[in-house]
């Protein structure tokens, strides 16, 4: 059986071993307050709370986690706090859901706490599905116990003895790591019956998602756990009242749960001292796209987009001009470069037509076509719509058809208005969040980059030079007449004499780009 005494012993025994290893590896530094952080410019401006142990501890070792105060928060709440007090601290901290919507975690817990039921459930939503997002995955693979501990604390707070982690099957390493972590925690008596010898019992099981994005939506997730087809439920009851199998249920995202233990270690005041008033704490972003240093960044809420992209990400790749930043994945929007000084928090991003979302952050430069970006995300939504409600199932399909038409150069007058009208209906009439936000990539690009849509439709031109169908290959007078392009053209549409400038017959050209690749002097351009 685990006791507080034993936990301390493990910590004291393991900490020096861990420090030795880290010193040898040389990637970290130990600060005066005893915290261990990663070295390097990339990490300088970051504040790592959810990722505090990632890349530092060995995820397969529960002792490593304990060495860095792991499970001390669980011990503390079990011995020193009543469930109501635990909830009070969570309310005070104002930790907001990191899955995207930003609902206050304490309020969620409080609601489930209120209901009397023979069974309650804690679900960890690990069905991370936004394209390019891998925050939750890194936590699950790098620091699984922080999530388990967070779930156990939530369980104690609301009176639940069963937890489920709904993790996508496409994350095999996360599944393996979690399985091992659960096993270790059970062995140590930190999960299972009578945790720390108290009368609090809490068990966690894994449930693997079968690859449907919509199962990240809370009610679809519960349907899936119940063994049904993953389609969102109509919200007659709140999940905290009647959720999984009709019982009070809490669904928290991975990153939210990873924040939980440290809030009880350091207190709500400490947590609120980071970030902004309305959005305290940090947020992890998957900084990707045309940025020099891509990867996970965890920053205090309220940091500007500019700081994230330039100070941490090192600026735009190839030193091109930044055009936009896409946040929030398929539910988010494209933020134009002139709004780069917007602070990143739930309210500020919503105000400019995007969302915080789960933390995808894609940097785009002048070669990225905004219509095509909208098309890309719509394509994703159409693929992932569950098919239950009409506006999402039928409407997103029609929006995608229009966007495809536009990017293929077949756009017509009235298409923009049709997109806007459909977007309005889909967002106001859809059943779940997937449909309600599906048109955001279109509305935000229409808001900030309407000219690009017009250029595609009226001038049959893609200003970013990215839509293949609207490109024209052209040989400039830099041509030295080496004939290489003509010899390599698969459809023989390039003519010209040796040592004379060559010409592409655009009627026959299939826009494969071979001529551009083989030209030794860069004389082939697209326009």
């Amino acid at each position, binding site marked *: 059986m685990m006791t507080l005494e034993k936990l301390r012993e493990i910590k004291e025994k393991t900490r020096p071993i861990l420090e030795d290893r880290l010193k040898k590896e040389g990637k970290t530094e130990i600060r005066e307050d005893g915290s261990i952080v990663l070295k390097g410019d990339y990490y300088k401006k970051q504040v790592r709370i959810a990722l505090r142990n990632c890349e530092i501890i060995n995820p397969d070792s529960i002792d490593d986690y304990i060495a860095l105060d792991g499970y001390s928060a669980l011990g503390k709440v079990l011995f020193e706090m009543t469930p109501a007090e635990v909830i009070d601290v969570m309310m005070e901290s104002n930790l907001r859901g990191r899955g995207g919507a930003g609902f206050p975690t304490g309020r969620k817990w409080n609601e489930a706490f209120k209901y009397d039921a023979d069974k309650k459930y804690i679900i960890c939503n690990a069905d991370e599905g936004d394209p390019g997002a891998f925050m939750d995955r890194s936590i699950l693979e790098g620091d699984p116990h922080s999530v388990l501990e967070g779930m156990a604390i939530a369980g104690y707070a609301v009176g639940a003895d069963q937890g489920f982690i709904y993790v996508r099957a496409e994350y095999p390493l996360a599944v393996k790591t979690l399985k091992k972590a659960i096993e270790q925690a059970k062995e140590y008596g930190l999960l299972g019956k009578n945790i720390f010898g108290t009368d609090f019992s809490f068990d966690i099981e894994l449930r693997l998602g079968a690859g449907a994005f919509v199962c990240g939506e809370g009610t679809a997730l519960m349907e899936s756990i119940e063994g049904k087809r993953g389609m969102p439920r109509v919200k007659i009851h709140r999940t905290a009242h009647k959720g999984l199998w009709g019982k009070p249920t809490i669904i928290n995202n991975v990153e939210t749960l990873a924040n939980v233990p440290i809030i009880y270690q350091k207190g709500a005041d400490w947590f609120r001292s980071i970030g902004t008033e309305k959005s305290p704490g940090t947020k992890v972003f998957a900084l990707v796209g045309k940025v020099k240093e891509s990867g996970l960044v965890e920053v205090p809420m309220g940091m500007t987009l500019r700081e994230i992209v330039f100070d941490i990400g090192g600026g735009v790749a190839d030193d091109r001009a930044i055009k936009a930043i896409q946040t929030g994945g398929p539910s988010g929007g494209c933020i134009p470069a002139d709004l780069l000084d917007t602070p990143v928090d739930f309210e500020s991003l919503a105000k400019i037509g995007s969302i915080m979302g789960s933390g995808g952050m894609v940097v785009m430069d002048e070669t990225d076509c905004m219509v095509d970006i909208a098309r890309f995300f719509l394509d994703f939504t159409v693929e992932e719509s569950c*098919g239950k409600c009409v*506006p999402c199932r039928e409407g997103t399909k029609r929006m995608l058809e229009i966007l495809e038409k536009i990017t293929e150069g077949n756009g017509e007058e009235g298409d923009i208005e049709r997109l806007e009208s459909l977007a309005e209906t889909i967002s106001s009439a859809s059943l779940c969040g997937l449909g309600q936000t599906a048109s955001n990539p279109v509305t935000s690009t229409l808001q900030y980059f309407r000219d690009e849509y017009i250029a595609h439709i009226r001038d049959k031109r893609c200003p970013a030079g990215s839509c293949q169908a609207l490109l024209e290959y052209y040989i400039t007078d830099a041509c030295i007449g080496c004939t290489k392009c003509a010899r390599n053209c698969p459809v023989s549409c390039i003519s010209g004499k040796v040592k004379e400038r060559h010409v592409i017959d655009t009627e026959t050209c299939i826009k494969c780009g071979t001529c551009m690749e083989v030209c030794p002097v860069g004389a082939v351009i697209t326009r």
Partner: protein
Amino acid sequence: MKNVTLTIDGQKVTVPENYSIIQAAKELGIDIPALCYDPNLEVVGACRLCLVEIEGSRKLETSCSTKVREGMVVNTETEKVVKARKDILQLLLDSHPNDCLTCQKAGECLLQAYAYRYDVKFREHDGAMRPKLIDTSSPYILKDDSKCILCGKCVRTCSQVDDRQVLSFAGRGYDTRIVLDLDKTFETSKCVSCNRCVVVCPVGALVDKRLMGKTRIWDAEVKTVDCKVCAYGCEFEVLSKKGKKLAVRAKAPSNGRPLCLKGRLTTELMHLDNPDKPYRKIGNKFVESSWTKAISIADIIEKINKLENNEEK
């Protein structure tokens, strides 16, 4: 049960607190359009046609799933609501074949009725349409996926009978379809032709094949009769034209009974002057059958004959 009073389209109504808005509206004679809602089935909120505006609520809410509250003020035909309904109907029509002229469902089709009510028309486009997959394997039911609006009523009613549960959703997004037993046909699946699904289908996606071509519904005289096969008495409808009884179709299961083929065939036999040949499913095939076998009374008739013959002797 406590009662609550609310206002719908300016009229006050008092209803039990477990009522949904659509039920309360019905009390006032206000017909909120809905394709997936059925008071006898689980509420799913899928068609989104029953959206209404509730004062104080930013979003439109589905009236099938929103419970009434004291003092609630609901408007069912605001500009915003009508725009959403028109768009939803247009989206459905855009995927639906323009076949009302010959569709058996015409006159009773809810999509047709609502399209008329909101003045939404078919239009030409070169985008996607639902696949033309038609299951003709059954002599009793015709399933036309191209007309399906995926309201899921058939799935829900089928799953209410524990040992049936034949119908389910398959695929996702625009490619979602209703399938039988993981995509089998009426013939190869364990469907028992009870026609519960046909009863609830709001469009022409599931129709009673024995009615097809016999009459347009507006030409028919429809009389409801109780089934006499068992004591429960599910309801059937007898359709006649010019005094001639043409067809029998399922109307509603009775409390505790699920509707069945035997009941329907027996009702046909009792009421129709000239019923079509019955069929039985033997193995994975529908085969033409005698009436005595179809309603499984062959043994009984034989026995009766024997007994009566003995008496006569």
